[in-house]
C-alpha cells in the first residue's frame, strides 16, 4: 500500500499500533481541510506494528499531549519533500487543559473556568497528579 509523500507538513510516526484514531480526535484533525492520511498497522522494525499520521500542512501540534498519550512517537517536520526536523517526545512536566480531573470533590471539577492542570510526579512510571487535589490522572480522563 502506498500513500503519496507530503511536500510540506508533518508526519507523526511510531505511534503505538491502534492509537492513531485517538490522536486524530485529540488533535482535532477532523477540522483540517488539508489531506490527512492515517496508516494503521504499518510494519515496524522496532515494534512489529505501528500507526502513522501524515498531515499535508504545517500546523502547530500540541507536543505535550502527544508525549503524554504515547511517548514513543516521533514527529517529523517536512519541508519541500525533506525531513528538516525530527522531534522525539518526552513526558511533559505539566499538562494544562487536556486531561480532566475526575475527582468530584476537586475545585476544578466544580468551577467551570478553572483550567484542569496536571503535573508529572513520577517520570519512570508516567504518573501525573492534579495540581489542585493530587488525584492521579487516568488515561480515560483525556
Amino acid at each position, binding site marked *: 500500500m502506498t500513500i503519496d509523500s507530503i511536500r510540506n507538513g508533518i508526519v507523526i510516526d511510531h505511534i503505538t499500533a491502534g492509537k492513531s484514531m485517538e490522536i486524530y480526535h485529540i488533535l482535532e484533525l477532523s477540522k483540517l481541510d488539508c489531506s490527512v492520511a492515517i496508516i494503521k498497522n504499518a510494519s515496524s522494525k522496532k515494534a512489529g506494528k505501528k500507526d502513522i499520521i501524515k498531515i499535508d500542512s504545517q500546523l502547530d501540534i500540541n507536543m505535550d499531549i502527544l508525549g503524554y498519550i504515547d511517548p514513543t512517537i516521533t514527529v517529523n517536520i517536512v519541508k519541500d519533500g525533506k525531513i528538516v526536523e525530527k522531534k522525539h517526545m518526552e513526558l511533559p512536566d505539566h499538562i494544562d487543559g487536556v486531561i480532566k480531573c475526575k*475527582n468530584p*470533590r*476537586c*475545585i*476544578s471539577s*466544580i*468551577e467551570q*473556568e*478553572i483550567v484542569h492542570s496536571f503535573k508529572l*510526579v*513520577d517520570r519512570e512510571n508516567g504518573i501525573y497528579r*492534579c*495540581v*489542585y*487535589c*493530587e488525584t*492521579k490522572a487516568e488515561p480515560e480522563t483525556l
Partner: protein
Amino acid sequence: MKKDLIGITDLSKEELAELIAIAEKIIEDPVAYSEKCKGKKLATCFFEPSTRTRLSFEAAMLELGGSVLGFSEANSSSAAKGESVADTARTISCYADIIAMRHPKEGAPMVAAQAAPIPIINAGDGGHNHPTQTLTDLLTIYREKGRLSDLKIGFCGDLKFGRTVHSLIQAMSRYEGISFVLISPEELCVPEYIKKDVLDGKNIPYVETSSWDELPELDILYMTRVQRERFFNEADYMRLKDAFILTADRLQDAKPDLCIMHPLPRVNEIERAVDEDPRACYFKQALYGKYIRMALILKLLGVE
C-alpha cells in the same frame, strides 16, 4: 514575592525549623510579640464550619495585636450567590492582609492563592490538606521530645481517611532515623500511594498491624478518630468505630516518656482516664497549634 501555605511540602526543612524556632520564642516571651501585627488584618474565610481551627487562627492573630474579620460558613458568604473562589479571594484581599481559608472542595485554597495578591493559608480543603495541623503536630513533637529525628511513631485508628496522618507521615519522612508503626483495622489502613510513594520510596521502615504489640516500643502514639462522615455505609462505621480504644490500662506497658497525640476532636478512642496521664499531650497540642499559627502569620506577613 508573596508566599502561601497550601500543603506541608510547600515548606522546606529549613523553613519548618525556622517556624518552630519562632514559635519557641513566642512561647518564651509572648509579650514581646503582642503588638507585632498591630494594624494588620487576618480574614478567616471558612466555607465550612470548623470552630477550633478558626478560633485558633483568630486567637493567634489577636495575640499578635492584629485584628480579625471573616465568615464561618458558606451560607454567609457570596459563595452562596455563586461567586467563584478566585473572585472571593481577590475581593477579600482588598480588606485584609492575609487569608486563612477552609473549603470543602479540594484545591480551593490553591485557586485562591493564584488569584489573591496576599498570602493564603490553607486551613483545610476537604479530605486533602491541612498543613497547619501538621505544623501543630511537628511543634508538639519537637517540644515534647526535643527533636524531630530518631523517633518511632505509632499511628492508630483511621489511617485510610485521616489526612492528618498522611501529612504527618510525609512531613516526618524527611527526618533521619524515623520509623512508623501503623495500627488499624485492615479496612482503614494507610492508602497504597502513601506506602509506595512516601514510605517505600524513601526506604522508611514501617510495620502494619492490627494489634497493640508494638506499643512498648513507641516514642509517639498518634491517635485518630474514625470519622462518621467518611463512610458511605453506617453499618461499616458502627463496626469499626470502636476498633481501637486507648485505655489507661493499656498504657502500663508504654514508655514513661511516650507522647500521646490526637488532632481532636476526640470521641471515645481515648479513654477519659488517660487525660490525667502526664504522657497525654493532646490538649497541649491544641495550645501549640495557636503558637505555630502565630509564627506562620509572622513569617507570611514578613514581620520580623
